[in-house]
């Protein structure tokens, strides 16, 4: 698991030193504060670790990292990732208590020279990023855009996921914990999303009925992705899952069920990072932390504080942040309307 991460001048994030990372983690903050940037920086780091020296891959660490940064953040040069007010950025992370870090300047375009790397080879396990939009109805366009036309538009978070869900099922028994999760998933979406190899199309199967993917609700498609990745064993007990806005396209009730399921996965060993704007997500995670007396760590980006962020643990408290404050403001507004009614 990722033990800690430190970023300096990485895009909008001037400085972040996140030491208390747990198995389930949440990142909150207003738009443009760096939530998705942080998720993507972690994802890039994990994918670099996973590709470097895997199988017979001859690529250098620098080349892999450069490629991951460009295609995940989709900037013309990686130097564009350096905070506009600074000359260089740095990233460091401990994974399974082994360290690696890198840094580069705003003029860097072809090679990252400053890399320190002490991480063991990672042969089997995969990390995955679930973007806010679902991808089952877009995968052909994603493949065409990335593999044939080599265009920016769908970054690595989409492309990697499109490839991951197409991966055929690996041999061997699935983890018992995952079987339970798949059963819960099936209950939530009342069916399964499956791939038809003949027509090369995804479809939604509910009982004996089959529905085209275009006719299937966004929320179902989104949740089903996890089921597919558990089913084809792309996700293992040592995976790290990054989720951007788990609440998008989901009813609050489905959000709760989805988070309970993620909690089960985290109990099985998977590390989860999510970025959210949703009061329901934070509240539900808070209740999970309280109920199970477990740490759910978080970062709250807030421009009002000196460091622009605060660390919190939902086991101890609900964080002070704009989402919670807005829910209180809405309630105060409700009282004002009621009180002012004459």
């Amino acid at each position, binding site marked *: 698991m990722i033990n800690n991460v430190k970023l300096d001048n990485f895009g909008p994030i001037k400085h972040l030193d996140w030491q208390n990372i747990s198995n389930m983690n949440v990142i909150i903050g207003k738009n443009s504060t760096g939530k998705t940037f942080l998720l993507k920086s972690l994802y890039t780091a994990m994918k670099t670790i996973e590709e470097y020296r895997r199988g017979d891959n001859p690529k250098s660490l620098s080349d892999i990292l450069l490629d991951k940064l460009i295609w995940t953040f989709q900037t013309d040069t990686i130097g564009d990732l350096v905070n506009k007010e600074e000359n260089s950025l740095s990233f460091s992370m401990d994974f399974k208590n082994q360290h690696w870090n890198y840094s580069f300047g705003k003029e860097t375009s072809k090679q990252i020279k400053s890399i320190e790397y002490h991480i063991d080879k990672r042969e089997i396990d995969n990390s995955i990023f679930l973007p806010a939009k679902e991808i089952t109805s877009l995968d052909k366009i994603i493949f065409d855009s990335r593999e044939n036309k080599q265009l920016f538009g769908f970054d690595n978070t989409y492309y990697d996921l499109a490839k991951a869900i197409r991966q055929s099922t690996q041999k061997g028994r699935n983890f018992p914990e995952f079987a339970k999760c798949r059963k819960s998933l099936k209950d939530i979406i009342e069916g399964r999303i499956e791939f038809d190899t003949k027509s090369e199309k995804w479809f939604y199967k509910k009982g004996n009925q089959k529905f085209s993917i275009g006719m299937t609700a966004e929320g179902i498609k989104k949740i089903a992705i996890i089921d597919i990745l558990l089913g084809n064993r792309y996700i293992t007990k040592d995976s790290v899952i990054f989720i951007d806005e788990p609440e998008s396209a989901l009813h609050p009730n489905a959000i709760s069920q989805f988070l309970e399921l993620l909690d089960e996965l985290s109990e099985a060993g998977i590390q989860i990072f999510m970025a959210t704007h949703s009061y329901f997500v934070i509240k539900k995670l808070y209740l999970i932390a309280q109920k199970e007396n477990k740490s759910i760590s978080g970062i709250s980006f807030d421009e009002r504080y000196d460091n622009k962020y605060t660390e919190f643990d939902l086991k101890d408290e609900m964080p002070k942040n704009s989402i919670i404050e807005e829910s*209180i403001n809405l*309630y105060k507004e409700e009282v004002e309307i009621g*009180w002012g009614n004459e």
Partner: protein
Amino acid sequence: MNKIISESGMNFGPFDEKYLYEIEKSKMVQTLQIKIVEFIVYYKKSLIFLEAKSSSPEPNQALSDRQCNFDDYIENVSRKFINSVNMFVSICIKRNKDKISTELERIDFSTINIKLLLVIKDHKTEWLSPISDALKTRLNDLCKTFNINPINILIINDMMAKEKKLLA
């Protein structure tokens, strides 16, 4: 004459006694032994049924207790509002021996706002919203029956009550 009413560790008022009905002190209520709000007051062009509480289900209680307490709490408070509105109407249509003041009798209740106000002492603002949502749901029938806008079901803490100048 103005009067201050002390309930649940809070001092409400001062209210003009002519527009105040201390329903809780009514002999009829005591005889009937029904759950009732603290008092009813005509204040700022609204008829307010006010219930005060010094405690409430708090998020730091054990989850198993909280669900039970929360439901009981909502039922208890709802029952008080329902009984109080019914009792007040019963007095107005002279089905009940209790009396309200002449000034209150003269008010045309057909047009004014009726507010069901719960004031909870030392309760965090962020904990009020779930109680408000649950009470609004539970009191839906009462609101429909008496044409009360659910937005007029107000759950506030002592700090907010002070801002509304409800506390002495």
